[in-house]
């Protein structure tokens, strides 16, 4: 029972990340009709924003180490510490949450320039061309990251106060031994919040209403005198921001390296397909569903019956879905169903 409970949490956690990336992918596909293979790279860029912020806050000077007296010793002390003492240390400690402040404007910029600079020239080109050009772009981004940050994963710790584990078992009346890292709980709540915010934005604002109308019938909205292209560009940037936030928050869970974007991209595409191309709710539901499935498949009990199932379960599900119900679990009828 305890093990199952933990796996549910693990699955929801992983599912949260999948759902956030898949949400952005679906938004972009639903609005612009573009298959964006560089979306995983955006997730990675977000993660490396957190890395950069951490490095920036940790900018250090060399000072004489007073505690060692019998020879000249130096240590690195971050400027923030010399300036503000305890407060400085705390700011450094909170690097990941602080980085979110950078991630939002930065990813907005990245998204806008990507759409205006590259993607918009590909609306009329076949899907294959879109896949290929964004794939090339993903390689470029990945290599830039590799050149600047090296090939090894960079650990980015969560703030000290939430570094430990919560006795989550006792909250639900299970044994006290069931513990779960605080940061993962926070990540789950965070992803749910972002998902809710995106949906609220689309459902409750006029902007969102126009976008939804545009997804449904782009020409009609254009005929009504609305510059739908501009709105879609903003939606692309929004997708980039969501992916970036997801990436930045994920850094304490998985130390980012240069190929995390590609790893997550393949999975999120599978998520989008399972949920249904162009269906936002489907993307979220499928994200969590596949996260859960993957968690359960990696339990030892399951693995002993079906060895290797944890490696392939997601792809198996995707193949089954594409063959049996090509529009996906929640896809609209007729979308990509040829």
């Amino acid at each position: 029972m305890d093990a199952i409970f933990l796996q549910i949490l693990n699955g929801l956690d992983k599912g949260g990340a999948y759902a956030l990336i898949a949400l952005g992918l679906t938004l972009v596909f639903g609005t612009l009709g573009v298959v964006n293979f560089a979306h995983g790279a955006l997730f990675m860029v977000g993660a490396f924003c957190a890395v950069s912020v951490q490095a920036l806050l940790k900018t250090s000077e060399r000072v004489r180490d007073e505690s060692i007296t019998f020879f000249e010793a130096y240590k690195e002390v971050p400027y923030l510490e010399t300036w503000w003492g305890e407060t400085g240390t705390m700011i450094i400690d909170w690097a990941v949450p602080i980085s979110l402040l950078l991630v939002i404007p930065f990813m907005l910029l990245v998204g806008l320039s990507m759409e205006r600079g590259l993607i918009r020239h590909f609306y009329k080109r076949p899907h294959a061309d879109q896949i290929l050009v964004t794939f090339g772009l993903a390689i470029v981004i990945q290599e830039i990251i590799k050149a600047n940050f090296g090939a090894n994963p960079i650990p980015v710790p969560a703030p000290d106060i939430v570094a430990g584990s919560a006795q989550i078992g006792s909250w639900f009346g299970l044994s006290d031994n069931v513990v779960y890292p605080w940061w993962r709980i926070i990540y789950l709540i965070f992803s749910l919040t972002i998902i809710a915010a995106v949906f609220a934005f689309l459902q409750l604002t006029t902007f969102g209403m126009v976008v939804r109308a545009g997804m449904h019938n782009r020409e009609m909205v254009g005929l009504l005198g609305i510059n739908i292209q501009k709105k879609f560009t903003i939606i692309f940037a929004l997708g980039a921001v969501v992916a970036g936030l997801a990436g930045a928050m994920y850094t304490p869970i998985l130390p980012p390296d240069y190929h995390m974007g590609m790893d997550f991209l393949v999975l999120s595409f599978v998520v989008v397909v399972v949920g249904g191309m162009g269906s936002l709710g489907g993307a979220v539901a499928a994200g969590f569903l596949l996260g859960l499935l993957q968690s359960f498949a990696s339990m030892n009990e399951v693995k002993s019956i079906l060895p290797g199932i944890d490696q392939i379960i997601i792809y198996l599900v995707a193949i089954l879905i594409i063959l049996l119900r090509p529009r996906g679990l929640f896809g609209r009828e007729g979308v990509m169903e040829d």
Partner: protein
Amino acid sequence: MGKSNVAKDFMLLIMFTAAVLTAPIWLAPIGANYPDLLQKFAIYGIFAIGFNILFGLTGYLSFGHAVFLGVGSYATVWSFKLLTMNVIPGILFGVILAGVFAVAIGYVSLRRSGIYFSILTLAFAQMSYNLAYSVLTPITNGETGLQLKINDPRYLDGMFIEAGAGIPSTNLFGIKMSGYSGFYFCAAMLIICFWISLKIFRSPFGVTLRGIKSNQNRMKYTGFNTRPYLLAAFVISGMYAGLAGSLLAVTDPLAGAERMQWTASGEVVLMTILGGLGTLLGPVIGAGVIKYFENIFSSIGENKLQEMFSGFPEGVSNVLTHIVSPFVGSGWHLTLGLMFVLIIIFLPGGIISGFDKLMNMFKPGSKLKPRKTEDS
């Protein structure tokens, strides 16, 4: 097809053969005439030609072709381990097993088209890759990769030849498959593959495939059951990939799972596009260009750059070194990605179509007209 076309094709084949066989000579000035690289040119040329038969003719973009490359390699290495160091059985096994995989994967994937087909093939590729890394370790030797060992049984060899000391090298009835002899073996395979692809391009089968690319629905209304044609194309191109994988194992007898990773599948897409999608010669050229740059660019280090720019004043050379260095050495993938993006944006027809445009510009009196890209 008229007689002149047949003659033209024959000329093309002759010229291709001559060019391939003399490659060690005419590639010498650019420093690409060492056997290892030449073997890679030929092998990846085969891979790309095969991929082109699927993507170039039918328009179905497979993102999982590296699976067949990996399967071919594994089968061949197993043949070396269990049967004989002669390459012929190894290659046969590699091609056949890749074909079997292609039938299975193709049968399922071809039920969908467009992006769904791409994602299905991608899913199969990721599954194979993950399995090769984890559960199938007894067959694939996981992360280390499958290697020859001194105490491998080699049953067939054991019947005919005295076992010598050390691991015997791969051979074709006694001719060692390394160095130039290895290259010429691969080159012969490349020429045969090119000839087959030429035949496919000119055959009614090839025309049918092109018809599927331009309008599958209309093909169906005309009464074609398109799926068997597609499956045939998929299997042929899978077998080409299997052959390429086998040859990789022949020239260097080890096989690793990273050959099946989806970035490896992406690479062959790159080669085909770069050279010229749907053209006869394009894929070979693309494969050559990419493998050449991979070798040259990735071998340039900081020191070599400084040497190259030593003619400039010091300040300028430092700046140049600084600008260029991220693009070479270990960062050569960056160049590859940029090249890829630029090609797709500005030259969707690849190098071949760029060459055509250039030729047209210099031809007196001819207007700049897009040429058909079907024939090289």
